[in-house]
Each structure stands twice: as structure tokens, then as C-alpha cells.
């Protein structure tokens, strides 16, 4: 009897341990993602409400990693490796990941929102944000994604990630945000 209880306890403990490990296993570090930048994905109109289960959270996290914000140098909209002011990101590599995911999920539609830091006039930053969004869209289209699946929008400098007034904040605020419109 004791043996049975002990076996049962051992199995339960092992299962619990295994479950705990699976939940707390550190995610694979994304080398190109800058550590200080909080990555996020806005989702509009999710396909269907689903109960919160472990796999769904996992998918959410995976989408966050894939559709992370990409960053730009000051007054630029070319897609390149950024390694300055706390941002270390291989932008083309991130876009390759997005293109791969969209190729495998032909129903997904996205909106790319171009953002700027505050070091420019209102009129120029509105235009710059549009160029940043278009640059990412054109890259994805060049990699086989239909332009009909991608909208672009400029926020200019209206939606900063970091409201501080320093180089680190400005670097974070020069970005494209990817919003999933439909899956």
C-alpha cells in the first residue's frame, strides 16, 4: 500500500516537475532582438475566441517574437543591422522571419505602422513614418508576400514607445510596429 502511495506520489511529483519545467523553460533568446525593447504585437479581430491554454499562450509568444518591432537609424528608412543606443537587431533577418510565417499562413493580413522619434518636425516625421512602413512592406513583397495582405500607416511621432527625451528613447521610438489584422 505504502509502495503504491509512494509510486503515485513519485509519478505526480515527476509530472508536476515536468510541467513546471516546460512552463519555466527560458525561451530561446532572440539574438537580433534588443534586450531593453519590449516587443509587442497588437492583434485586431482574433479569428476565434479560444480558452486560455498553454499552447495558445505559446503561439502568442511566438507571434510576438516573429512580429517584433524593427528599428531604424536616425532619419533613415533603410533596412539594416542596427547596433546603437541599446538596440541590437538584424532587421532583414526579422523581416525574413515575418515573410516565412506569412508564406506559411496565407490568410494572415498585417498592418505596418511606421514610427519616428521626436527629433524632426511634424510634417517631416509623418512622411518619414510612411517611408519606414513602406520599406518593410516592399521587403516582404519582394520576398513573395502579396501586397494585398499588407497595409501601411504612418504615426509620425505621435506614438512613442518611450516618452523620455534621450538617445536611448529616440532609438526605441524609430520603429515599424506590425499589427496582425486577421489570421
Amino acid at each position, binding site marked *: 500500500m505504502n509502495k503504491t502511495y509512494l509510486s503515485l506520489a513519485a509519478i505526480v511529483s515527476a509530472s508536476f516537475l515536468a510541467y513546471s519545467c516546460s512552463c519555466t523553460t527560458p525561451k530561446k533568446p532572440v539574438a537580433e532582438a534588443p534586450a531593453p525593447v519590449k516587443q509587442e504585437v497588437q492583434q485586431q479581430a482574433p479569428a476565434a475566441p479560444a480558452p486560455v491554454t498553454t499552447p495558445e499562450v505559446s503561439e502568442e509568444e511566438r507571434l510576438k517574437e516573429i512580429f517584433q518591432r524593427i528599428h531604424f537609424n536616425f*532619419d533613415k528608412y533603410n533596412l539594416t543591422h542596427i547596433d546603437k543606443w541599446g538596440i541590437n537587431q538584424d532587421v532583414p533577418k526579422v523581416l525574413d522571419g515575418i515573410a516565412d510565417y506569412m508564406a506559411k499562413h496565407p490568410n494572415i493580413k498585417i498592418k505596418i505602422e511606421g514610427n519616428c522619434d*521626436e*527629433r*524632426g*518636425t*511634424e*510634417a*517631416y516625421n*509623418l*512622411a*518619414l513614418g*510612411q*517611408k519606414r512602413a*513602406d*520599406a518593410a*512592406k*516592399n521587403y516582404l513583397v519582394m520576398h513573395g508576400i502579396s501586397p494585398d495582405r499588407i*497595409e*501601411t*500607416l*504612418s504615426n*509620425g511621432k*505621435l506614438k512613442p514607445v518611450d516618452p523620455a527625451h534621450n538617445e536611448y528613447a529616440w532609438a526605441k521610438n524609430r520603429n515599424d510596429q506590425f499589427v496582425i489584422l486577421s489570421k
Partner: protein
Amino acid sequence: MRKIIFFFIMLFFVYSGLIYAQNYELNITNPNYQKIIINVYNLKSSNPQLASKVKSVIVRDLNMSGFYQANDINSTINNPSDISGCNYGIYGSVSGSENNVVLEAVVYDVTNQKIVIDTKITANNFAWVSHKLVDNFMLYDTGIYGPFESKIIFSAGSKNVKNLYIADFDGENIQQITHYNTNLLLPMWTTDNEVSFTAYLNKYPSVYLLNLSNGHVRSLYSASNFSENGTYYKNGLYAVSINKNSNINIFLVDKAGNIVKQLTNNNGITISPYFTPDLSKMIYVSNSEGSPQIYSLDLGLGVSTRLTYNCPNSQSPAVSSDGTKIAYICAGSDFSLNVIGVNGGNNENIISSYYLDSPSWSYDNRYVAVYGSIDSKDGIYIINTINGNFSLAIGANKLYSHFGGLDVSKKIN
């Protein structure tokens, strides 16, 4: 004895040199930096509240001009010979009502002991009679009529919601004219009765026209996911910056939203069109050579010329109403307001600060209104480009902590 004589001779030369140096220094000092002192006395009236408001705007406008130091004197004057301790004295009376204000004012030149202005001004609000008096005084004193009979349209609100407001040039009489729940930016006067603006009223930033008489708003151009600026050209045509094929260029658009002509054809960003008063040139911003710079397009020849070389990020040009000067913003870690000749050259830095945007000239070609942050105070500033003096016309407050553009009207009769 010789040594003593030599000593006195040397002392004479040193003294003469000092006297000469003082004279020379006086000669090169810009007289505009020496503010003229004006005492403004209480205005007699059966409506002391109204008279007090008229007086306070006179003081405000004189100080805002950057040429004068106006002292608000809390006493009345019966005899001009009683005025002292200043260059000019202003006194008089106010009658009428809030909607029909009559100002009878006298300006007395203390130095020459004579009355230089004796006038009766009528207007439909207290601020306007004051503006007219100050503008007339500036005409007498400087030879150029003052800038205060104009209106500023400006965008203001919070980070996420900005609406349009109209105020007098000095910041008096602020009126909110739109009530949207989104960002309305970059307002521009197109005619006396219409303004354009860029807004997120639909999905994307687009240019709209607002009729000030009936409040009607309509889209000027919506066939692109990006358009901004709505600068009036002529014959019902507007210059609009439009995104086409991932390049933003300037197009002429009619009131129905049809593209009539493409004015620029650059890769990258080409925005902020501004026409010279004779409509022979369009001044604009382009980053076609790498960084944003100011260019001039000869509309007859179709040839563009780069005008700015002194600033790595030259943006937001505005042409003076006499067509001789361009004010623009040099953006970067710090911002500055610069002025160049309409054909380039003679670059002059007027003021530098943490942030400056949307320069717009007054009709008298001496002042530029900008919004931004100067000495850590956000708001709309009036900057005297002759001597660099500046005044806060509209300060940020609870109603509007953020600004999104401005434009100064022509003189309003």
C-alpha cells in the same frame, strides 16, 4: 621731467583710445536692442472693466513686439506734460460696449514734447482696438505697420487628440473650431474663409478642407494611404504631398480631389510646398540628396535649386509675404529657427531651442510665429527676426499640452 611728460602723453593716448572705443561701440550697437520705454496709463471709461482689458492688450502687444518695454501705469493722465520717465506715453478713453468698442487714444512723444497720434478706433471686440492702436504706433515709430491685425490657426490638445483653434496674433481671443477625437495637424490658411489640415479622420493621414463659415469639413485627397499639406496655389488648386509608389511627392490637386499636375518627381520624401507671393516659385523640402534640405522650384522653367547647406536637417520652410525671405527649422538634437534669402544665401540663425516647428511669417515680414519649447516652456511664440526677441503668445495648459502646427493669416481688415 622728460619721463613725466612722456607719461602724460601716453596717458592722453590711452584715454583717447578709450573714448574712441566707446564711440565705436555705440555706433555698431543695433538700436533695436535698446527697447523704447512706453508708459500706458489707465483709460477713462464708464466701463472700467472694458477699459482695463483694452489697456492690458495694448501693453501686451507693445511688449510682444520686441521693440518696446511697456509699463502698465495705474493712474490717469489729464495733461500730457505730466508724462515723464519714458519715451512715449499712451492715454485716452474707452466707450461703447463689448461688441462695439470705441478707443480714443493719444500717443505723446515725451522727448519732443508733442502728440504724435490722436486717433479714434472702433472695432467689435476689445482686443482689436488695441491691436489697431499698436499697429498704427509701430507704423509711426518704425515706418512699417504692425503685425497684430491677423489670426493664427493652430493645432493643439493632448498627445492623442488635437483640434484646431483660432487666436489673434498675440494669443488673445482663442476659439476652438473643431471637436474631433483624433489628431488634426498642420493647419494652413488657404483663403480668408477656409483652412486645410492633415488628419486621421478616416484610416490614414489625409488632407481636409474646413469651411470656416459653415464648419463643413471635406476630404481634399483620399486616393492614397498618405497625404499631407494643403497649400493653396491658385484657381481652386492646392499643392498636396502624396505617397505614390512608395515615394512622397508634391502634386497639384483640384477641389474635387483630382490630380491636375505632378510638381516634383523625386525618390524619397518631398513635402511642405510653399509658394512665393508672385507664384513664380515653389519652396519645398526634399531628402533626395540624402538629408532633408530646402529647395526652390522655378514653376516657369521647371528647374529646382537647392537653397540650404548650413544645416543637416532643414525642414518646414515658410516664405515671407513680401517674397524676399524664407524661415525654416534646422532640426536635430537641438532645433533652430533660421532665415535665408528666397534665392538662398544670407543664412541667419534667429533663435535656437529644445524644439521649434511650423514657422509662419506675419504680414509685416518682421515676425515669425512658431510652436515649440523655449526656456522649458511649451507654447506658441512670436519671434522678432530683427532683434531675436521673443514672447510666449499661447502657453501650453491643461486644455492643450501638445501642439501640432500653426499658420498666420494675412492682415484682416
